């Protein structure tokens, strides 16, 4: 137990250091940008008609003249106290914007994560256990095609087919236009989230299935599978008894590593469906030079990715008897 706590503690410290690094890198990249936030947000023409005083006020608001080091240290100090600053575009606390947006995105991502996990694992195991046969070829073909397809284009095609041609689903947004937050039903939410979630799932399945197949194929070449065959076990029994058991460990890693991919996909998909999630906010913040918001989103998404990795490591310790029992003994 002590060993495990030490392990978790070490991981947490490493994670905190990485997050610090992420925030610093993101900040440096943003402050290195030659793009002028005033021009992008106020517009060249409007700027021309303003007085020096007004411009100075705006420059102050967008933080153009503050020295970067001071700005970063100020941000970091606030962040540690739980304050992520104020979004310049939305004129709301960053934590509030992220909280709201994350809630919308979580619907999408959780759905896609579960579907791609379950379906991807199943297809991957089937393909890996039937290497070179028809099922394997079909599944590999699907994975190959989908991994060569940009997620946003897939989203566009689904939008054209299901919303424009068939009229089955709305063109965008997470709730009906003009609806009061209180009136929004779960059905409305599902209805609006369906196509984006479907797009994310289709791409996610391909990724997980492809990697699971490799692992499964590798397992089918192991000595213990050969011995199981020598003992008269059928292919079915080998896959169910030994294949699934041994593919479970790499599957955990794959599943948690896919969080990063799904987040990336959601940025694109939300843009196509104008779904007001975290990804869309990130794009807006980037295009509008909203430094506090973009910094906040980067740190939060990196934290989610690192937490996912940590979960995978911890789960490994519970599932793998070599770690579980090995650690208990020493």
């Amino acid at each position, binding site marked *: 137990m002590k060993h495990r706590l030490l392990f978790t503690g070490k991981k947490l410290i490493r994670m905190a250091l990485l997050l610090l690094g992420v925030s610093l890198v993101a900040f440096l990249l943003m402050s290195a940008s030659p793009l002028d936030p005033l021009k992008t947000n106020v517009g060249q023409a409007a700027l021309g008609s303003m007085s020096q005083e007004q411009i100075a006020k705006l420059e102050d608001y967008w933080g153009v003249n503050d020295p970067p080091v001071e700005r970063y240290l100020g941000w970091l100090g606030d962040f540690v106290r739980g304050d992520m600053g104020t979004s310049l575009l939305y004129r709301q606390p960053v934590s509030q914007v992220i909280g709201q947006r994350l809630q919308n995105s979580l619907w999408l991502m959780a759905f896609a994560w579960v579907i791609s996990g379950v379906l991807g694992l199943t297809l991957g195991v089937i393909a890996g256990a039937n290497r070179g046969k028809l099922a394997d070829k079909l599944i590999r073909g699907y994975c190959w095609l989908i991994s060569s397809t940009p997620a946003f284009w897939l989203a566009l095609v689904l939008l054209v087919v299901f919303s424009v041609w068939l009229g089955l689903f709305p063109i965008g947004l997470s709730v009906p236009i003009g609806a009061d937050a209180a009136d929004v039903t779960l059905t409305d939410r599902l209805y609006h989230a369906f196509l984006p979630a479907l797009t994310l799932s289709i791409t996610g399945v391909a990724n997980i299935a492809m990697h699971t197949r490799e692992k499964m194929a590798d397992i089918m070449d192991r000595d*213990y599978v*050969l011995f199981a065959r*020598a003992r008269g076990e059928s292919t079915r029994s080998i896959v169910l008894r030994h294949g699934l058991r041994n593919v479970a460990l790499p599957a955990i890693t794959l599943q948690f590593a896919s969080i990063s991919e799904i987040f990336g996909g959601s940025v694109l998909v939300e843009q196509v469906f104008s779904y007001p999630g975290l990804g869309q906010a990130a794009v807006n913040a980037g295009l509008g030079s909203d430094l506090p918001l973009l910094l906040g989103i980067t740190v939060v998404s990196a934290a989610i990715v690192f937490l996912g990795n940590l979960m995978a490591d911890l789960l490994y310790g519970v599932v793998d008897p070599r770690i579980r029992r090995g650690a208990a003994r020493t």
Partner: protein
Amino acid sequence: MEPILEVRNLSISFTQYGRGTRQVLLPVIRDLSLAVAPGQVVAVVGSSGSGKSLLAHGILGILPYNSHMAGEISFLGQPLTPRRAAAVRGKEIVLVPQGVTYLDPLMKVGPQLRKGRRDQSARTASRAVLERYGLGADTEERYPFELSGGMARRVLIATAAAETPRLVIVDEPTPGLDARAARRVLGHFRELADGGAGVLLITHDLELALTIAHRVAVFYAGETVEEADAADFAAGRLRHPYTRALWDALPQNGFIPISGAQPGPGEVGEGCPFASRCPKGRPECMGPVAYRELDGGLVRCLYPEGGEQP
């Protein structure tokens, strides 16, 4: 007595890529013949890299997909077709593999022994067979990584003894064990043979093989070069120069090393593969050499030891 297993002119080869896009057929076992009678331990002895393990996989019908097998195998007098092999393996023909890597690393020993059966009789049986090999009931709850080398070996033997095999194929049972443990493990196989099963023991260790084997087939570069009674060795009634060299290389017999190296698969011509290392090698040895009977044994040599010159 009718043999349990009879292998006639077996050859196993693999398709491989040579240079560029050319595919070549690589023979690993050529023209192998042997027979195992009930209650008999037949040892196949050869140095590593001679393709011995593939013999076991070939009999069980579990060779990899890029291999080809030719020749005849009969089991209990009937041809052992792939379909029949699938039906009898794990039941009437069992394999005792080399080491702990042949056990599922994430499954406890008990369920592995029971092959997925959960009923009470299976539990009683698995406990009994572990006990037979001196393993306590707690062994069932262990994972393979928690077994010592000797325990793992006994668990592997238990997987075979849990069935009612007519033929036990044993692949390299002794590496990693000290002499006493090795002798004890081999004793277990002798017991199985004494119970009426045929045992095919595949090993590189001639000395240990001789402690339990009735007959010994010597394997060199994919061929059987000699088949002899175990008693022939001590009596000095050896036929093939390679067998003689193997015997002389044992510590108690002078420890004389054999110079040169065994040719790998694909490096063997149609002649005797040992010719280049043979002290009595002659130009004729590069031509075809028949496997023939001599003195109650079989030999593949034009000028066998102690035999009259042809």
